[in-house]
């Protein structure tokens, strides 16, 4: 996997506007932006109501994903181009999710909605009508998803990357600062995790930094680019952005996204937590 297989720019999207083998998908947690205006031809996916099980905390089943994509008119052999707001966080999560269920050709639109809007490119309100398909998913690819026991086993042994902001990592904030801070989890981070905020991988217009810059960023922060990595954040969408960078752009062989992330880990009983700006020792503690 490399940048040319995984990423397209806005000019590419506009050049493929009438390409029947390409389907654009806008993904966000709040899809009101799609309703107000989206890239021509794009269908929408709601991160919560479409991609999350309505009862327990998990993904929709393989059969549920098949039914969802069939209803949206997405076929197995089509190139799916994902984009969204929030610097493509939820689009990157959907990219990882499509890979988890085995979709062959998935791409991200570099810069997502933000770069598209800042460039003044056109948005429409027409909702495309796509005939239903018979989509078939694979079983989940367990090699790209980490669970809490994997993370506990990784403390002090495997590369853990916390991609939240420095204030969330240290425990001074419990959520990104566009959200109220009243949360039920303990503040802090998983001991021995390095803090490399997702935002360092992106320019301020939301596009990804160059491969050379990205290698220098993660290598310089002490990540073994030949070793195993688990990325996490608060609910797994910002860490999907970093998973995309490490696994899809830089081609690291074994990168997993811990989608339980801090909202799970910070609520577990009896696990070590580290406060402050340092990665800390495996037993955790206050800085």
């Amino acid at each position, binding site marked *: 996997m490399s940048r040319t297989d995984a990423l397209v720019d806005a000019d590419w999207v506009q050049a493929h506007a009438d390409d029947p083998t390409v389907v654009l998908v806008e993904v*966000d*947690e*709040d899809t*009101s*932006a799609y309703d107000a205006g989206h890239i021509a031809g794009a269908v929408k996916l709601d*991160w919560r109501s479409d991609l999350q099980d309505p009862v327990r905390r998990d993904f929709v089943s393989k059969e549920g994903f098949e039914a969802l994509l069939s209803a949206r008119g997405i076929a197995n052999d089509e190139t799916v181009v994902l984009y969204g*707001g*929030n*610097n493509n*966080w*939820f689009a990157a999560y959907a990219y990882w999710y499509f890979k988890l269920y085995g979709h062959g050709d998935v791409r991200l639109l570099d810069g997502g909605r*933000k770069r598209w*809007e*800042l*460039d*003044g490119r056109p948005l429409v309100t027409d909702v495309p009508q796509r005939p239903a398909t018979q989509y078939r998913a694979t079983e989940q690819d367990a090699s790209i998803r980490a669970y809490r026991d994997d993370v506990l086993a990784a403390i002090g042994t495997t590369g853990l990357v916390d991609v939240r*902001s*420095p*204030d969330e990592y240290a425990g*001074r*904030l419990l*959520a*990104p*600062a*566009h*959200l*109220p*801070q*009243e949360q039920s989890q303990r503040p802090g981070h998983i001991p021995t995790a390095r803090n490399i*905020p997702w*935002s*360092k991988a992106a320019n*301020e*217009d939301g596009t990804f930094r160059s491969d050379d810059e990205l290698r220098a960023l993660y290598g310089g922060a002490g990540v073994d680019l030949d070793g195993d990595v688990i990325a996490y954040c*608060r*609910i797994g*969408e*910002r860490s999907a952005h970093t998973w995309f960078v490490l696994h899809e752009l830089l081609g690291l062989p074994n990168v997993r996204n811990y989608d339980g992330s801090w909202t799970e880990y910070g609520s577990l009983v009896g696990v070590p937590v580290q406060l402050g700006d340092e990665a800390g020792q495996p037993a955790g503690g206050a800085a």
Partner: protein
Amino acid sequence: MCGARVGGRSLDGVDTGAEAVIEGVVRAGGSPVAGAYVRLLDTGGEFTAEVPTDADGAFRLFARPGRWTVRVLAPGREPAQRAVVADTGAVATLDVDV
């Protein structure tokens, strides 16, 4: 729930006594700018949050007490930024011209 809502989260139901709120309006030539991107940067310049402005050009952030930089990207404009100090239980108001 982790994404940013256009204009920022409402204060309805929020214990504002426990929050350090930063809010304001982005304007160009005196008129509100909808769809500008308001970025909250910490004292190290590191990204902490971002919200798009609403139809009235308004934004709201929930910071921690301390010094911050609010940086604004808007279509067809040069980026603009202003410093702000947030305090728990207070609403720091700042408007940014682009």
